Structure formats: structure tokens, C-alpha cells
């Protein structure tokens, strides 16, 4: 069966302060001369390799497991799931 890479990005919702992103933005990016960068938000990424018959199926499996196992806390986080092809 083919293998697919699926990326899971867990990001806090816009109403949540992100002191890590703010610090990276203010004290590294802007002070480093990139003042055209408007903002930085930090997030966590998981890469899952899934045995599956199609890319769509691999993505569906990961979507299901993220909700079932609470890979993200829906009160504070959004989760973006994207298959990025065969490996």
C-alpha cells in the first residue's frame, strides 16, 4: 500500500494571546530589520506518514484521529490537516 505524508498544524485561535509569536516578531524579526513583517504566530506541526490507498483517504484518516483523540483542544485551537503527497 502506498504511503502518504499528512501535515497537521495546531494553532491557537485568534482570540488567544501568543506571547511566543509576539516575542519572535518584536525582538527578533522587527529588531533584525524586517519591519515589513506584520506579525508572527507560533504553532505546532505534526507530520504523519499514513499507509493508505489514496491521498484523500490518508487525509480523512488523520482528520478522524485528530478529532477522536483530541490532538487539539477545540476551545483554544484550530487544526489544519493537509496531505502533501506520496513518499
Amino acid at each position, binding site marked *: 500500500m502506498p504511503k502518504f505524508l499528512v501535515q497537521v498544524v495546531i494553532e*491557537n485561535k485568534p482570540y488567544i*494571546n501568543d*506571547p511566543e509569536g509576539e516575542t519572535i516578531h518584536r525582538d527578533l524579526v522587527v529588531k533584525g530589520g524586517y519591519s515589513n513583517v506584520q506579525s508572527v504566530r507560533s504553532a505546532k506541526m505534526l507530520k504523519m506518514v499514513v499507509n493508505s490507498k489514496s491521498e484523500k483517504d490518508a487525509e480523512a484518516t488523520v482528520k478522524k484521529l485528530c478529532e477522536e483523540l*483530541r*490532538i487539539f*483542544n477545540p*476551545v*483554544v485551537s484550530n487544526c489544519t490537516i493537509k496531505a502533501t503527497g506520496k513518499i
Partner: protein
Amino acid sequence: MAKIGIAVFPGSNCDRDVHHVLNNVIGVQADFIWHTKDRITGYDAMIIPGGFSFGDRLRAGIIAAHSPIVQEVKRMAKDGLAVLGICNGFQILVESGLLPGALLMNDSLRFVCRWTKVEVKNNKTPFTSQFAPKQTFGIPVAHGEGRYIADNKIMKELKKKNQIVLQYSNDDPNGSTDLIAAICNEEGNVMGMMPHPERASESILVAEGAKSNAITIFRSLVSSLKQKAIA
């Protein structure tokens, strides 16, 4: 005689402190229960102690929330037994869905380990019944992810149903919404708190001038169990 279970996970590190306070300072029987146990009988209350269960992998409390013992704790909570989560225990209760909201990294981005002060906002729970209304007391905190967050809808519910139990008083160690230090469920039998009462239950542990009544958390619990036994 009331018996209290203490859930132990790989990475728990306040389990022995809680065990010592209950058995040796208060004089109530408390036993360690390993996280793989999927059937618990003969216990009147459960405490989920602090620490770093499963190394805080993915998110503090989430792996432990899926463990067999927590499914059993959910059943006990539904049956009306008292469940107290301290620090990592609070995080586990939130991640298991027994309490609403989330605990995120402190807004300082630092692990905070120091004494603070809290005010009792609800003294009608099994964990706070021996406190006076609005009583304040000193207690230590030690956490990296203690910023309690809830959306407007949850906050409204918490306020309406009097579920905010402790609030930081004249101090903000982590950036929690409304300075929340402890909340309970709607029924009041499940409480999660970030500060550590087991680290302030003997005078030798209390910081100079801190005047701690933190042991009252455990005394309230034991007294509520005794009342239940009589009824």
C-alpha cells in the same frame, strides 16, 4: 472509614506529597493507584496529583486523559464522587473533558515556581466548605502551563453556575482569564486547581509570613466524605 485514591502516572511527582499529607498529617487512608487500573472499587474520592504525566508530550495532560484510570475517574465523577486535580491533575481534568476550557503556557513564557495568594470565591464545594466566604490564603504555584483560558460562552456559564472556586488575589502568576486559579464542574464534585495545597500543609513548608490555610482544601474534602458516610 473514608478512603482516597491517588492516581499515579509515569511523570507524576506530587503523588507522594499528597499521600503524606493525607495519611500522616490529616490521618485519612490514601493509596496510590497506577494509571493502568481500569476498575476502581472501595474508594470515596480520587486525587490526580501534579507532575509531568507522560512528559507533557503533545500538550500537558492530554496523554493521561486517555489512560484507563481516567476513564474510571470519569465514571466516579458521574456517580457523584469527589475528584480533585492539582496542577497537572487540573490539566488532565480539562483535557479529559471533565472540566471546561484549556490551560496554556504562562503568558510570561516561564515556568513559575513561587508563593502566591488566592481568594475563595465559592465555599460550597467539597474542597472549600471549611473556608470562610472570600477568605484569602497563601499557597505555592509551580507550573509552565497554568494560563486558564475559556471562550466567552464558557466564562458566562462558569460565572452563572458559580464554578469559579479560587482566584489569584493581588497577583497574576500566569495570565489566566479572570485570574482563575481553580474551577469546578456544574455539580461541584470535580475541581481542578493550579496551586499546590500539598506543598503548604505543614508549617515547616510555609514561606515566612505567608499564613497558609492550604490544608483546609484536604480537610474540607475529608469532612465532606465523613458527612456523606453519616448520611
